């Protein structure tokens, strides 16, 4: 922790972990994409993808190939450099933020002391990517999507941060690994159920998924901020969405659900990642479930909800936490 000189074995571990993490990020999109479509089908009384591979498990591969084969069109009126930049900006920061996520005791690329701060900073970048994508497209619908995403992020980020701070108050650290270690006996979700719920709701807004999918809002804005994107660029947004989901889920698990803690396994230093992933995916299943059940809220309603309900409750929760910790 905090070592400035990297010893070769440590370097080896970092490289190994980095490879694992990158692989995981891409694999996650495939798995999650498939699971989502399958589950959506089941919620809607249909079997979901069935054609490509047994039970359609290769469907996402087929889609990826299709997207790769598509022409990408840059509208004449678009701001070309920004238009090219936006998909990357949507994906890369979220992907990079996995540097500090502890999949297990050893499977963490870098254990920053300010891990949580780093993550929160990266989260905010997500909104910038959406804004740029919408702005550069030079399409009114895209612009609406972009503006909505800004308005939305102003609203949900405050309760989101407040709920995270409640945990920080309890653990006295921003270091992700230490937060996990502090949940050795009892998960924070037991002590902080309100903060967890608030984080989860705000997190759903963060991922731009129904019922908070305002920047995309298909029935209103055709496809919102990514209306003009096609082919591989579009697939980056797709990747970004699932990576973002995974990311939001990971933080919830690290902060509230005991991270990689779980029953003992051989090579616990590494294999504990299994518990971590299990927890993350169960959270993501709930997110998918919610998405395929509810209608979309209107964006001023989301703002109202965030300001009138989430923020005050998060504040009260924080206050109570502070008092209890002090006692």
């Amino acid at each position: 922790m905090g070592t400035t000189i990297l010893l070769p074995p440590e370097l080896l571990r970092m490289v190994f972990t980095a490879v694992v993490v990158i692989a995981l990020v891409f694999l996650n999109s495939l798995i999650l994409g498939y699971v989502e479509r399958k589950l959506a089908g089941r919620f809607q009384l249909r079997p979901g993808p069935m054609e490509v591979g047994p039970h359609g498990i290769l469907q996402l591969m087929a889609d990826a190939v299709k997207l790769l084969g598509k022409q990408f069109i840059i509208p004449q009126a678009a701001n070309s450099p920004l238009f090219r930049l936006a998909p990357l900006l949507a994906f890369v920061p979220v992907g990079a933020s996995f540097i500090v996520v502890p999949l297990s005791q050893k499977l963490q690329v870098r254990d920053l002391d300010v891990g949580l701060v780093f993550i929160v900073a990266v989260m905010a970048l997500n909104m910038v990517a959406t804004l740029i994508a919408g702005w550069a497209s030079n399409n009114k619908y895209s612009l609406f999507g972009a503006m909505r995403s800004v308005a939305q992020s102003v609203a949900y980020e405050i309760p989101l941060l407040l709920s995270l701070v409640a945990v920080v108050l309890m653990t006295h650290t921003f270091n992700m690994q230490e937060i996990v270690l502090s949940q050795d006996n009892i998960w924070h979700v037991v002590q902080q159920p309100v903060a967890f719920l608030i984080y989860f709701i705000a997190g759903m807004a963060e991922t731009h998924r129904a019922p908070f999918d305002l920047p995309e809002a298909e029935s209103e804005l055709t496809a919102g901020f990514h209306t003009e994107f096609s082919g591989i660029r579009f697939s980056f947004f797709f990747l970004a969405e699932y990576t973002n989901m995974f990311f939001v889920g990971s933080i919830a698990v690290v902060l509230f659900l005991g991270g990689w803690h779980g029953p003992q396994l051989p090579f616990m230093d590494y294999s504990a990642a299994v518990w971590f992933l299990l927890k993350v995916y169960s959270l993501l299943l709930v997110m998918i479930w919610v998405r395929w059940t509810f209608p979309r809220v209107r964006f001023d309603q989301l703002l109202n909800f965030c300001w009138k309900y989430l923020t005050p409750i998060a504040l009260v929760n924080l206050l109570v936490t502070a008092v209890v910790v002090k006692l």
Partner: protein
Amino acid sequence: MTTNPDNQQQSFFLNMGPQHPSTHGVLRVLLEMDGEYVRDAEPVIGYGHRMQEKLGESRTWKGFMPYSARLDYVGALPCSHGFIGLIERMTGIEAPPRAEYIRVITSELNRIASHLLWLGAFLLDLGAFTPIMYTFDDREQVLDILEDVTGSRLTYCYFRVGGVSRDIDEPFVEKTRAFIQRLRSRFKLYDDLVTGNIIFIKRVQDIVQFTPDMAMRYGVTGPILRSTGIRYDIRKNEPYSVYPEFDFEIPVGETGDCLEVYRVRLREMEQSLRIIEQALDRLPQGPVLAKTPRQLKLPQGDASFAVETARGELSYYLISDGGETPYRLKIRTPSFSNLSPLSELCRNVLLSDLVMVLGTLDLVIPEIDR
């Protein structure tokens, strides 16, 4: 970009449609926007114009039958009912009672199918992806029943002058009864999933207001008119076919907002089920097609006939000069009048609300354009 001199705010124009996911067809709405607020919404129609009225003038009454079903393809049978009723009124041909009962049963089934489609599509407009699959599940049952007797699933050409083209049989009656049971038990599911849902209520309640006055000025009919508290339904006010023989209510609302329209439509489905049930119970025996001359000349003069489709009042007006084809055929379609108040309704609402209102109107675009 234009500048609004009143408040020095910039407004701009946004074309919603003709290709847009929630206009449900080739409707274009020209929006004057101020940020996300709609300052003015002007529907631009005509993209799907098919000259239905002119076609009617160049075809014999027999030849127009298939066209009448293509006016409102979501609820085609009531539309055919109107046209057939018009010809029968002009020529004095009467359909046997069994045929009239079958017409009512199938029309009401079609009305339910139409409302179910609306329910799903409306929620899709609101961003809920799943309910449409459930309503389609139910609607499929209706379509199967109707396919069995009419031979097609959407644009039926089933009614004939003097009756219907095919008799119904015992399996039809059984299947319809099973469907009545099924749909009654499904209302609970829709209530749980949709009606009670807080997000749904907040999205549709008190956003825009249909008033009796506005409805009368624009000639709005159907569930939207009834949601404002006016009890006007052709089936009761100007009864046709055998509707007077059944005991059913016309659901009316009070407040006239979109939630009320939603409620009225749901209750209408229940009433339709009641009508079908009674008709099945009392189904008379006998032929289903009266003898009609092969070559039928329309007598000189004019006549009109109105029916209550799923969307409101649809009426035909025909002038004949005694030839085989009408001199003039005028069709009044409900969606056209129901769309008209859009610009008055949607001042200073959000874009999302406009989409919601368009969904509430339950438009069938080709019916507007004719």
